[in-house]
């Protein structure tokens, strides 16, 4: 099957690792290769290259591998860029490929193309369906998570404003004979600028809202003697230790931030959440509770010799329902052999020793996973989902700019309509499809059409 478009994705699992790979596949990708690394490397030879962004700035330096069709994983031209791992670099590299003409790959799409181009045998192909199925589900969940709160509202406002504008423009084309208030030039210009302004706002807030910048919020529960601090220092590792230490709203509550793989994790220490009669402290606790509302999950640290204490349980019970939790059993180095044998891996229970370092890697991966960076190769995480949404918004912005450009010239409503259609098509990656029939439905519900 001939695919006209070029796809790109980060091929290595997000998270730890010195090297990350961005992979691009398509028919005839040489112009993209030129834009991203400045030359076409010799096929199938590892070449040290600089990687450029769309403005020609160097993002990173690494290894570029070019596999011309058909001798590649997908059977199409494939470019692999191996750069320094870590989300920031991978993100910039991917963005560069996207602005050079690729689109973000659908879940499982590389494998699908490989299969469709006879690069996988029947036995391997059996698993393709499962990969697509599993990764699609994961992607859908991540997309949902990306589309929550502020971002969703802001996107909705843009889409609605765009639909309103399209209703006027399309009605003036298809129903020019009807007695309805047709879009006036001035009116269209004004409303188009409105849509553009909304879109800029969403783009700005979406960038701010990315996990990379903002991180996630974790409720930290644990009695003073269970080894929280040493655990957190170990987690943060050599990259960046404790970044901030802000006194909480009560004497004992503390917010601190650590970074893992560049992802900020904000920890709300709930040591101060206890029964009290002190009025000032009560107010402080109320405020702390409201910050808890935005927590993404709970991290409960215990001494593995004792397990959950009644004090821990009381705090757990007081948290908003449905908050996912990770149970960390520390100090397994102090367990006797018999108890140690019972220690298993699994689910939300993690056994660690801040002294020996045992289990720390597992905990680190679990935290990243909870933050949306899941290490499984098939999924793409909330971060990628957000990336996809940003791409849709950026594409829509281009079409709206075209529309504004047209609008400044002679009134050519059918061309304006075309740009607006394409802008909406781009946004449908976020909002789901909006078809001609949906548009007509809006027109008929708003205007009395028909002789």
């Amino acid at each position: 099957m001939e695919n006209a478009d070029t796809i790109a994705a980060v091929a290595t699992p997000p998270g730890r690792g010195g090297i990350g790979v961005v992979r691009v596949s398509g028919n005839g990708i040489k112009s993209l290769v030129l834009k991203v690394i400045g030359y076409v490397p010799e096929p199938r030879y590892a070449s040290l290259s600089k990687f450029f962004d769309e403005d020609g700035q160097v993002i990173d330096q690494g290894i570029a591998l070019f596999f011309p069709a058909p001798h590649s994983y997908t059977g199409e031209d494939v470019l692999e860029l191996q750069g320094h791992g870590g989300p920031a670099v991978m993100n910039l590299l991917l963005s560069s490929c996207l602005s050079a003409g690729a689109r973000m790959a659908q879940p499982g799409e590389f494998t699908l193309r490989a299969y469709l181009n006879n690069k996988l045998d029947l036995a391997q192909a059996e698993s393709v369906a499962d990969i697509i199925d599993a990764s699609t589900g994961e992607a859908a969940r991540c997309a949902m998570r990306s589309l929550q709160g502020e971002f969703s509202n802001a996107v909705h406002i843009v889409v609605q404003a765009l639909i309103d504008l399209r209703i006027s423009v399309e009605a003036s084309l298809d129903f020019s004979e009807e007695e309805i208030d047709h879009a006036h030039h001035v009116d269209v210009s004004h409303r188009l600028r409105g849509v553009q302004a909304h879109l800029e706002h969403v783009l700005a807030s979406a960038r701010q809202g990315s996990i990379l910048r903002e991180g996630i919020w974790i409720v930290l529960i644990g009695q003073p003697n269970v080894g929280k601090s040493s655990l957190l220092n170990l987690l943060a590792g050599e990259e960046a230790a404790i970044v901030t230490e802000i006194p909480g709203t009560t004497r004992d509550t503390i917010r601190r931030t650590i970074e893992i793989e560049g992802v900020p994790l904000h920890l709300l220490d709930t040591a101060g959440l206890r029964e009290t009669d002190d009025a000032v402290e009560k107010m402080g606790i109320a405020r702390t509770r409201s910050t808890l509302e935005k927590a993404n999950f709970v991290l409960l640290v215990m001494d593995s010799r004792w397990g959950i204490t009644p004090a821990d349980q009381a705090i757990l019970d007081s948290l908003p329902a449905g908050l996912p939790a990770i149970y960390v059993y520390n100090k397994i180095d102090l367990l006797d052999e018999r108890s140690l044998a019972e220690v298993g891996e699994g689910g939300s229970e993690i056994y660690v020793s801040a002294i020996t370092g045992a289990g720390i890697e597992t905990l680190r991966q679990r935290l990243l996973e909870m933050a949306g960076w899941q290490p499984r190769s098939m999924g793409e995480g909330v971060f990628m989902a957000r990336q996809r949404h940003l791409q849709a918004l950026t594409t829509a912005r281009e079409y709206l700019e075209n529309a504004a450009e047209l609008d400044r010239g002679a009134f050519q409503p059918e061309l304006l309509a075309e740009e607006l259609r394409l802008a909406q098509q781009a946004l449908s990656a976020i909002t789901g499809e909006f078809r001609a029939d949906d548009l007509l439905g809006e027109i008929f519900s708003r205007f009395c059409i028909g002789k």
Partner: protein
Amino acid sequence: MRVDNRVLPLRRTPPYIAPRFTVECHLFSECDGSVVNCSENFDVIVIGGGHAGTEAALAAARMGKKTLLLSHNIETLGQMSCNPSIGGIGKGHLVKEVDALGGAMAAAADEAGIQFRILNSSKGPAVRATRVQADRMLYRQAIRRRLENQPNLWLFQQGVDDLTLEGECVTGVVTQLGIRFTARAVVLTAGTFLGGLAHVGSANFQAGRAGDPPSISLAARLREMKLPVGRLKTGTPPRIDGRSIDYSAVIEQPGDSPVPVFSFMGDAARHPRQLPCWMTHTNRHTHDIIRGGLDRSPLFTGVIEGTGPRYCPSIEDKVVRFSAKESHQIFLEPEGLGTHEVYPNGISTSLPFDMQVKLVQSIKGLENAHITRPGYAIEYDFFDPRALKSSLETKAIEGLFFAGQINGTTGYEEAAAQGLLAGINAARKTQDREAWCPRRDEAYLGVLVDDLVTRGVTEPYRMFTSRAEYRLQLREDNADLRLTGMGRELGVVDDVRWVSFEAKREAIVREQGRLKATWLNPNTSLNALPEADALRVLGKTIEHDYSLYELLRRPDVSYAALMTLPGAGECVADPVVAEQVEIQAKYHGYIERQKDEVARNAGYEDIRLPLDLDYTTVRGLSGEVQQKLNQFKPETAGQAARISGITPAAISLLLVHVKRGFSGQKKKKSA
């Protein structure tokens, strides 16, 4: 059983019909009306002589197939049963396409048109559309003459009671008299005749169109075949005697001048005498009358079950749904040159007759109006078009094609377009050739059929330009460039049209070549462009060499103005050619971008999905998706992708499944 061996007299209908039609039919009949064996075989039988049926029959016959057109009533062939106009925005596009494929509608409209307008003429060419007010009688005559003079086409007046089948293939039809005709392909264009029920107030009666009988037994038969059926509604206004209209109180709406033509082969000089239309408005009093009669409106008392179109509501619907609007426009359209009857477009109603009189007489200019025919609403059966292939052949019964209103569409133009396509594909069926299914980027015909077969209908389907995502390339002006070549290949375009088309196409290419090869430069060397001329035509001086073609692509530079530049050479004589060159230049960038979009989506269109594929065996598909796909059995992955609720991931899974099937087969063969 007594056997009666009478020979049924099958007469040639009027004397000028070309081929002779003498058939020996043996009637084994008593009064129970059992079957008559008729020895006459046809390639294609078309049931119904409306806009779909006539185009279907003409197309099959043009392709050299022996074709039989069966109609209740030969007098009503080509009848415009609703308003007397053809074309409009989106609809005109369809008519031009039918014309580009050799169809009759545009040419008949040219012969019958008494008012011609180009709608959206102030907007870009993609949304400009032709609309004709047609004389009903002249239109019918124009269609009838074409049918009667068409070689390979036979007409016969009989209602059809039944279809004959062999297994899951259609083999012919049985008429009301029990006459049996055989054919390899049957096109059913029964319009609103299937299970038709007309309403005027609380009175209702079984009907096809006003005055025609409904096809009840055929409807029952089709229901038996378990083809999925739905119910729709449409309506007409009361007609008015023009002598009772006060024309001094209404607004005149003249046609365009110069008078446009509809057909690519048309000639404005051959239009009949032109008439204006008139416009008036409803008022508060009218609306009060209507509100007062809602308790006797079958629409609002729940008697009518079918869904009516939202874009063509009855006047009672408009008054109720848009109650803030104090006035609605009404177009008074003349029914023809030889009659006083006027069609008041905009007051379609099923109110009781006494209310109709009151509401009409409340309108300015119509105070003394005499109603010649009451308005009515009609409910009718339609078949869920998702049971059709994109050739318009039913998926369930081989050789049986459905076209027109029976598929849930409304409008003469939509019907004609489907009829033409069904006729072509029925003929190709008898040739054992693959169906011709125009794509969405090739024709409104493709948009129409694809919408129907992938999305189904929830209200009568009408074409709008906003339905076509490739609107900028699907224009009235280039319908011939898009389709006449294909039509020639299919065998529906005759020599006269072909020669004229080729001349036009060549002239366009020649002029484009000339414009691309003619350069103007800013310096004082050869072919320099004087500054004054540059400012006059281009609005600014040129800073480097430009070809005329590049300059023509600028939005504010017209072909005519460009040709006034020194060095521009001689313009083409044919204004149609000049217009086409200009439009193509202006839209160039957009069309190229749309072509990219088409190419990106093209891959899936070529991937066929077997109609007997059981989607529950496709790994990974959700239950809901499996159910949807099993219900509608898309023909290609592209169609599947356009079914609502089918995700890209589901399509990926389908691709994997289909491919696995193919490699499995290959293995079997080699083993």
